């Protein structure tokens, strides 16, 4: 387990982590490794990224400053930090929805320019289309990529089966519970078999039990497809339980405070039970020490500003 200064996270830094994956991958061996080679385009690298926004009156506002970290192909990277530390900004930069003001965002060695190929997004709020059925929502991904309607619907059916929603194809999103909608969103995000999955507090609005169930399902599906993941969350326990790497961010403007590699073995099994393992507690404690300062600072600032 290494606590590294963010700036040290260079191209070589993640290598031990990658070897780790190959050993632990469910379908270990050659197939697993070949998969990884194919996915070399799934490496995400941010270096010196600064993002400024202009307020409507033309003032510049710095959301993130000099953010540098990298995510290896097939790695599950969680980003934690206090509110308003530019976590979501970072995601929109990786997806190509937005451009950095300074620094570079590279995916698979190439500078991000326009919407990044092979990427999927999952938001805290539903991004489902309320006027489409569950099936139509999931089939959207392949249809936008020009796959024929018949084939798109067939693979959407298959994905609904994989997330346990067979029988709900013709329902509309408003007829489903929060957890079921998350499953639909998950199927919709994974149906294109993305090499990169960006998640912005995807389970933030769920109750604790549903959240645990969804986390397990996510891990199961991730083990099958092995996309690189950037998973944003407020919840440190969730971050440590799911991720291979945890990035702690400071607030206002956001920058990387520290990067931790999580050496809990995979497959992790149930996220509920992993929380009681000594190694988990140790890591959690260590990261929390670093995060607490930031949270307190952010809290003090917001209360200071309002009073």
């Amino acid at each position, binding site marked *: 387990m290494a606590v590294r200064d963010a700036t040290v996270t260079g191209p070589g830094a993640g290598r031990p982590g990658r070897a780790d994956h190959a050993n632990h991958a469910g379908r270990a061996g050659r197939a697993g490794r070949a998969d990884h080679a194919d996915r070399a385009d799934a490496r995400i690298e941010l270096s010196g990224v600064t993002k400024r926004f202009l307020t409507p009156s033309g003032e510049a506002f710095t959301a993130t400053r000099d953010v540098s970290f990298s995510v290896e192909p097939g790695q599950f990277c969680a980003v934690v930090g206090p509110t308003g530390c530019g976590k979501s900004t970072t995601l*929109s930069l990786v*997806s190509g*929805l937005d451009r950095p003001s300074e620094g570079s965002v590279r995916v698979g060695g190439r500078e991000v320019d326009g*919407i990044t190929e092979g*990427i*999927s*997004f999952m*938001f805290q*709020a*539903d*991004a*489902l*289309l*309320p*006027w*489409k*059925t569950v099936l139509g929502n999931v089939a*959207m*991904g392949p249809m*936008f*990529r020009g796959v024929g309607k018949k084939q798109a619907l067939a693979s959407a059916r298959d994905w609904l089966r994989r997330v346990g929603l067979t029988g709900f194809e013709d329902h*509309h999103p*408003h*007829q489903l519970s929060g957890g079921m909608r998350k499953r639909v969103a998950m199927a*919709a995000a994974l149906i*294109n078999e993305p090499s990169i999955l*960006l998640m912005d507090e995807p389970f933030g609005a769920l109750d604790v039990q549903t959240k645990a169930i969804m986390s397990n399902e996510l891990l199961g599906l991730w083990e099958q497809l092995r996309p690189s993941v950037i998973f944003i969350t407020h919840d440190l326990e969730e971050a440590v339980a799911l991720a291979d790497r945890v990035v702690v961010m400071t607030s206002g403007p956001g920058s990387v405070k520290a990067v931790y590699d999580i050496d809990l073995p995979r497959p992790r099994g149930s996220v509920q039970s992993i929380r009681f393992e000594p190694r988990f507690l140790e890591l959690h404690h260590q990261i929390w020490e670093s995060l607490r300062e930031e949270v307190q600072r952010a809290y003090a600032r917001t209360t200071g500003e309002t009073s």
Partner: protein
Amino acid sequence: MTTDTTHAADTTGTATADTRATGAGVRAVRRRRLLVLTARLGVAVVVLGGWQLATTVGWLDPFFFGQPSGIARRLVEFFSQGQQATEFGSFWLQIETTLKEAVLGFALGAVTGVVFGVALGQNQFLADVFGPYLKIVNAIPRIVLGSIFVVAFGIGETPKILLAAVLVFFVVFFNAFQGVREVDRNILANARVLGASPLQIVRHVVVPSALTWIIASLHTAFGFAIVGALVGEVLGAQNGLGLVIKTAQNSFDPNGVFAAMFVIAVIALSAEWLITKLEHRLLSWRPPSPSEAAAI
């Protein structure tokens, strides 16, 4: 054993209580419906009967205010006299003319309204440039444009269609514009990341999302289309219900005016019914609104 039997007795007791409550509920609902229907009929009888009575007794002059029986007679005449019903052809022809103008104007105005609304809603620059002008044009009493159209395009159907279209355009445009602006940012970002082209985004995300707003505007918009067609006809026409009204006015025939008004009301209500049908069909995905669910 004893607890078992009491439990069984309890459940059957609840069941019969439930049935009884349901029965009483159904009766109460039926009674209320009947009451509402009777009251409605009563209002019609009082208003029409009062009108008839007042004009018969002489409190009101039927020469100015018409008379329900006279209006009914006039309606029968309109529909039974064939080519002789009006000086300019059968009554059906007048209905057809007005309906055609209103429907064409409605279609033209609605389509251009949606196109411009979506385009300006999508493009901040265009919206900033055209925004103030649209506000200004919206503030102008556009019905006056009818005079210009009649002068420019003669007394055929074109000026009526254009007037109806102009009135419809602004209603639909502002709603479409607002609807496009209200599209959920997350949904848009998600569609873009999934690889949707700008055209696919408009077709699958923006238009369906704005449809709630657009359809809401169509209800009022059809009313405006009819107003546009009628005013155009009053200003100058060869056929149409507006001309029927104008002729009746010139020959001091209030019953004729009222009869034409009645026919127009029937047309407007039928259109409203059709639009509501369309709304239910297109917006079937919407959860039932609380007011609908609570309605009896």
